[in-house]
């Protein structure tokens, strides 16, 4: 069988943007392009990231939780 099933695709490395501002000590939300669409993940970051800032997913903590960083321009 060909691996057409993308349900196991990891969002790490995907680029997205912040939909709910990420505070330095709490979760925010990012919309990441993955599986041909865009999905919302709960995002944590070492620094506070404001709304609509482009990010890159650097790590996946759980299925719906990722660690993000600012996308270097």
């Amino acid at each position, binding site marked *: 069988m060909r691996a*057409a099933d993308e*349900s196991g695709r990891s969002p790490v490395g995907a680029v997205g943007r912040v939909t709910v501002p990420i*505070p330095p000590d709490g*979760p925010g939300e990012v919309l990441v392009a993955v599986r041909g669409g865009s999905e919302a993940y709960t995002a944590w970051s070492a620094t506070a990231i404001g709304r609509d800032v482009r990010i890159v997913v650097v790590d996946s903590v*759980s299925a719906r*939780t990722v660690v993000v960083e600012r996308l270097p321009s």
Partner: protein
Amino acid sequence: MLFWHVPAPNEAMLISGSKRQTQDTQFRIVTGHGSFVLPIKQKARMLSLALREAEITEDCVTQQGIRLTVRAVSVFKVGDDAVSIANAARRFLSEQNQMEELVGRIFAGHLRSIVGGLTVEQIIRERSRVSQEVIAGSHGEMEKLGIVVDALQIQEIDDATGYIDNLAAPHAAAVAGQARIARAKADQEAAEREQQAAALKAEYERDTAIKRAGFLAETEQYNARAAQAGPLAQARASHEVIEEQTALAQRQASLAAQRLEAEVGRPADAEAYRQRTLAEAARDQVKFQADGSAYAERTLAQAQADANTARAVSLRDGNQELIAANRIVENLPALADAAARGMSGASLTVLNGTDGVNEMAAGVVGQGLAILQSLQRGTDPATAQDGDDRNQDPTPRIADSE
């Protein structure tokens, strides 16, 4: 095909009994394509990944301790990744139609914690804070269920304490006040404009009335003038008449005066003149009489003196002629007296003043002398011719006063 099962795009097919397991799950998850499902040996079930919604109505207490009844709608779906599908399948596969109810109950508790972390103002105004609280409060639990919360919409906040109304009250009051102020201002402005308009109207009315009164006055004036014109003309005419009458009266008066003058004054003057002349004549007559008598006396005295002288001379010379003449000389006063007496009875008008009187007197004396001479000629005609050859005696001679 009977054994070829294809899940819909919004479904995940879960095949149990399969030996080919891609994940560590006890069943195979198939999304996006079809798969053989062997009868009896394998069993396929479909899990909908579609969007679902749960309505929650919950009494919550905010961070400030204010009791609110919140009605929210939670929109969620089963996550698209294998982990979420597996979690959701294990929990909800047999009760998919009860998923909303279950998630709603779970979410109600989360809603309490979400609202408890916020203030009323934040709930109302700060959407991002609400979303953050939703994530922080419900994410872990939802992930356990394999559910992704797309949105939580707070639809209604029932405020039993009236906090929101009170929150709004100052603004509402301010706005209402502003509205009232604006209305009052507008009213005031309108009233001002109206007053101005009324004032202008009154002014125009006043001006019109003044003008009308002015025109009326002018008309009246002209009417009065016109009305007066007749009487005035009459008065003028009568004035002229009176003037004429006055002039007439004056003329009549002057005429009467003249007539009086002529009839009374002049005769009186004439009479007075006559009287005066008569008086003067009488006075002159008396005067002349006096003069005449005085002159006669003087002449007599003179004649006497001359006679005496002649007598004295003749006595000295013994001249017979003179003696003879002496007789006549003696009679001279009597002659002169007679001549003078002849005049004394006459009333005559002497026109040459005193000279006239003298002339008269001289005339009278001259007459006396002429009489004397004629008498002498009568007595001695010889002597009359050579009177000058006689001796140069200083006989008095009365020169003819011509």
